[in-house]
């Protein structure tokens, strides 16, 4: 069942890859300079304030975030730009220090013991390659293998394995400047996997990739990393469709708060105040109006309409009803009319609609 943000963790320690409790982070903001202040005493004062650190404001990026990511799942952090997704990823990656709260990676506190935490977790940032364009793909991986302290021979075997996993064979001896964005992104994953980390974080994994490369990369995350290698993946994205495609569970983040956590279906169901059904029936034989009238007479049905196909004689009846609509009632009416039901399909609201609605609720 979907859950609104919880304060108390519920997963057992052994099945919890990442546990974030009451995480808070704010950043300093510096006053901006606009033309009204140009050349004035006020401008000088503001500039002095910027240099000395006085008169700064603070921007709250995370406001008590609680999260649990299960071992082996693909978990998505969804939210608009500025929601706090990257801050969560960077804190988990030990690149940003939180103001308060606890962040455990495989039970290790990332603030107290960052080096140990990094043995379990690595991240791949979209805008930040950290790779050297003047070196080949293999040289880059060898460099990071050395930094991870992997001896030369095992490192070579591992690099070969990762290059194969990432379908980069034949390109590894090319200089990185010849790599496409998609290939570079895969090389970054190879770099992260060198460490034997079993948790992988992605910040906007398919940003700047063309549709074909993006689809390929999503498949790579879902199948090669999560399914075959049994890795835990946490990804931050504002692409709802992407989250729906590859995530087992998602958390909706808004203004530094997690407003809901659950599977994509649970999130959609949470906001489904209407249900939509689509039935295909045969042998209607001129009783379309009667069928619509019968269906509409059922309690909770808001609208019904029929579309008949001239090709196969089948008719599709679309029904919109309130949440908790009694399906049996109108199915009995259809059966009593001696109509054959060929298919029934229930459609849920899209994740995008769910996200917008929850966002609106949180804002109110």
């Amino acid at each position: 069942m979907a859950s609104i943000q919880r304060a108390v963790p519920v997963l057992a320690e052994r099945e919890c890859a990442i546990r974030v409790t009451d995480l808070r982070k704010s950043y300093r903001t510096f006053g901006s300079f606009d033309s009204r202040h140009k050349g004035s005493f006020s401008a000088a004062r503001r500039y002095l304030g910027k240099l000395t650190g006085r008169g700064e404001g603070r921007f709250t990026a995370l406001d008590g975030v609680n999260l649990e990511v299960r071992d082996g799942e693909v978990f998505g952090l969804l939210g608009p730009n500025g929601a706090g997704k990257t801050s969560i990823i960077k804190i988990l990656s030990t690149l940003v220090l939180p103001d308060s709260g606890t962040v455990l990676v495989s039970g290790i506190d990332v603030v107290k013991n960052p080096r140990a935490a990094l043995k379990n977790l690595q991240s791949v940032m979209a805008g930040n390659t950290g790779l050297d364009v003047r070196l080949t793909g293999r040289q880059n991986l060898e460099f990071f293998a050395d930094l991870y302290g992997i001896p030369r021979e095992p490192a070579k075997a591992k690099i070969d394995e990762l290059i194969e996993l990432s379908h980069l064979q034949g390109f590894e001896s090319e200089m990185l400047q010849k790599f496409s964005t998609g290939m570079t992104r895969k090389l970054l994953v190879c770099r992260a996997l060198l460490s034997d980390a079993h948790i992988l974080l992605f910040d906007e994994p398919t940003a700047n990739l063309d549709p074909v490369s993006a689809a390929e990369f999503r498949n790579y995350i879902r199948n090669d990393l999560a399914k075959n290698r049994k890795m835990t993946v946490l990804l931050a994205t504002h692409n709802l469709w992407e989250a729906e495609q590859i995530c087992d569970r998602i958390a909706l983040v808004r203004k530094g708060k997690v407003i809901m956590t659950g599977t994509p279906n649970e999130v959609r169901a949470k906001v489904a105040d209407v249900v939509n059904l689509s039935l295909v029936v045969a042998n209607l034989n001129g009783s379309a109006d009667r069928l619509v009238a019968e269906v509409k007479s059922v309690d909770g049905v808001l609208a019904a309409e029929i579309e008949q196909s001239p090709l196969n004689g089948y008719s599709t009846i679309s029904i919109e009803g309130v949440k908790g609509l009694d399906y049996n009632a109108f199915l009995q009416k259809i059966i009593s009319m001696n109509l054959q039901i060929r298919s029934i399909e229930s459609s849920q609201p899209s994740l995008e609609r769910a996200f917008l609605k929850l966002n609106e609720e949180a804002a109110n």
Partner: protein
Amino acid sequence: MESPIEFGKIWALTRRDMSRWITYKSQVLTTLMSGSIAVASWGINGSYRNVQVAQYDCSYVSFLIVGVVISNLILPLTQGMQNRLNPWTLESILMTGPRAATLVLGTSLWPYALAFMFMIPQLFIGIYIFGAVLNVNIVSFVLASVISTMIVFSLAMIGTGVKIVTKMTDPFTSALAVAASLLAGMTYPVSYLNNYIPGLSTVAWLIPQTWIYDIMRLSTLTDASVLNPGVAEVFIGALLVAVILLPISYYIFNISIRRAKRDGTLGWM
């Protein structure tokens, strides 16, 4: 207990810098040329003056050539580390969990090795074209090199730490470079400063580079043995500067990283 110095990682960083550097063929040539031209121009300057430097009992051209070569050794290191620590690279490297010392040594070693290699043609020009005379005491020279390296690494670490926080500019290195160019005695003995303002040479000794110039010149120009009490005194002074600077710089580098992580600006530059 884990070793505080991770040699494998230091070598990895050095090899990365080396592999990258050799791909820039024109840079190899221009670095070599600019260093040699600097030595040549100062060599002409020194030959023109043609005076003896009593303090080191050598010709001015010898004094000047050694000063310029040392300056060419210091500069790439203090600036080189900052240039190599790009923020995007820094984040990725920090994710591998290195110690601060590893990061600093690994990032500094190649520019330092390179500067050392370029010393050879520069000294060659100084000796064979401008007649500079070296009188090297090997033990003192090795000791002076070690102490100088410690001092320069410390300065590089402080400068890099400051730049990680201030981002665009490093006021520490800039201020120190200005002070050094004015007072550290690259082109004159610091005692000469007293002719302008009495006691100014004492201020010059507050600049770490002054110690480097002095111990390097003593060991390369005067065959000074560290067993000589007068020389030992200078070397102990320089060693003290290094021993004080090293932990301070390590601390500053670490708190700078921590500050940037707290501010969330580690990936900025």
